[in-house]
């Protein structure tokens, strides 16, 4: 028999997990919304961020909170480089080309990680982050709550950046109408490169969180990308703030599927939801706003 407190606990775990999903997806959703590029190397960039945080902790004893900017910088640099080297040359080509291109970059990165750091699993262990907090029978760890808060902050921060800053506005204008933006004196090429780098940066900051709450290894990038894409579609392309809600729907749905049915159906739930939304409401749950 499932107790009431278990249902609440399960619900909470799904909500928190959903927050992480949003953070893991942010970079992909942003790049897709702005540049219309589905970055299939997204998950690998997250993994890179995770490795950066892991190694700075293991080698230099620097905690994940402090190493986060470093992870972000690594992701951003990788994004910038990918754009500089490859993407700018296929900007005008059909969508399929950028898809395959970024897929190739993803394969390259996965195998590079394997060469550099072996296939071992890495998990970022910091005492204070693992500490559980309790509210009656309901429990969560400091790390989970912090990650959730961070995820929401990242989403709101990105939103504020896009709406409040000059650079953000330029990015939005370019996304809505490239030609007019170019006529208005915006260097669209630079905007593209910048936006892709920001996508990398957003992926990079998700890495340490992945390392803390789950684990980092070369192969986990691919599944992360798929999850990020599912979330992007659920939220609706261009809806950044919708990611949090979409993540929660997915996270809670998965958790409750396990609680009330069986964990065999957890993934089935995710894909059914994905297909249902895609077929019934291709613009996603939360419209199309940028």
């Amino acid at each position: 028999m499932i107790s009431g407190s278990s249902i609440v606990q399960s619900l909470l775990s799904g909500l928190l997990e959903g927050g992480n999903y949003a953070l893991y997806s942010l970079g992909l959703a942003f790049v897709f919304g702005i540049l219309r590029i589905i970055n299939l190397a997204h998950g690998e960039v997250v993994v890179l961020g995770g490795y950066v945080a892991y190694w700075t902790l293991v080698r230099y004893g620097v905690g994940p909170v402090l190493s986060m900017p470093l992870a972000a910088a690594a992701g951003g640099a990788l994004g910038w480089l990918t754009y500089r080297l490859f993407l700018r040359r296929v900007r005008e080509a059909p969508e399929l080309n950028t898809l395959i291109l970024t897929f190739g970059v993803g394969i390259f990165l996965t195998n590079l990680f394997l060469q550099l750091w072996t296939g071992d699993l890495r998990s970022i262990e910091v005492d204070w982050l693992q500490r559980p907090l309790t509210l009656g029978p309901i429990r969560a760890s400091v790390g989970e709550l912090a990650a959730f808060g961070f995820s929401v902050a990242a989403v709101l921060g990105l939103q504020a950046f896009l709406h409040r800053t000059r650079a953000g506005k330029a990015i939005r204008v370019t996304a809505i109408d490239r030609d007019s933006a170019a006529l208005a004196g915006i260097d669209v090429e630079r905007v593209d490169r910048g936006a892709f780098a920001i996508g990398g940066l957003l992926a990079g900051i998700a890495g340490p969180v992945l390392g803390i709450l789950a684990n980092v290894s070369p192969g986990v990038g691919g599944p992360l990308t798929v999850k990020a894409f599912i979330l992007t579609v659920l939220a609706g392309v261009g809806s950044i703030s919708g990611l949090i809600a979409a993540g929660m729907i997915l996270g809670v749905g998965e958790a409750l599927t396990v609680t009330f049915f069986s964990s065999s159906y957890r993934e089935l739930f995710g894909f059914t939801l994905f297909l249902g939304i895609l077929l019934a409401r291709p613009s996603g749950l939360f419209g199309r706003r940028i």
Partner: protein
Amino acid sequence: MRWPGSGLRVTEGTAAALFFGALALLPLALSFNPYYLSILVAALVLGSVAVSWNVLAGLCGQVSFGHAGFFGLGAYASAILAMRAGWSPWLAMAGAGVAGVAVSLLIGLPSFKLRGPYFALAILGFAEVLKLLALNLDSLTGGSQGIFGVPPPTALRLGGLTADFEASRTANYYLAGLLLLLVWGAAVLLRRSRAGVAMATVHADEEAAAGIGVPVLRTKATALAVSAFFTALLGAFYAHYVHYLDPDSAFDGAWSIMPIVAALFGGMSTLVGPAVGALVITGLDEFLFKRLFESGHQLFFGLLLAAVIVWAPSGLLGGRVRRPTT
């Protein structure tokens, strides 16, 4: 891409004749070495799936990211028909193709209103669902334990010659080659047919196609059904060839991704290009990259992929082979 000294341009028929001719003679050159033949079988299976995929993408302009779904479905359908229902493996393979058509229509009809990457990823979603079903319908599929001992196609006798598909790599090689020829031939006939013309117009511009009376939905459904039929057929061949099936290998995402890579690499604007691409990438991976790095050799492969997209987007044959005009 401009090829250096690309004065030479051949028709697709010529390219295909050269290609299939070389395939027929290749075993002689390799003195029927089973190892090379088994690598080639893998390449031919990939090539056939790539050509099938390209019927949908190259002819009709609809890119799918989920052909692993049809491949795995075909593999399971054939294995189950042969082992549970006692069909001959040959008949079971045909049955698998039909199952592929049925499921493709079920999947396709709601998905066709989606465009571009949405369509591609919807098919991916369906492929994942099929994989999860294979994993969870234990009583039918054996769940994650998979199915052992899928029988090889029954031996064929032609005069004094016997093709034993259980033991002989050569027999399997020629069977895989014939399947590729079949898929390619069907694709050529399809392109020449009235439905092929419809696909070309849908590929170019859906709205304009509808404007001149092309039934867009039916055209897409035809392309998907043909593509799924052959992909499932190849999945069935694979099942009878490796004699073992489990959800992870039959629905492996590689069956979705690698055909796309092969098609892009070989050239999507031709029908034989994807097959050539499959042979080249399999060869590079097996005989070059693997030698350079024992583990993680797919690193080169990722780079190569990116390089092809950026610097040779029309593929190996794209710039060289003329598309036939009707």
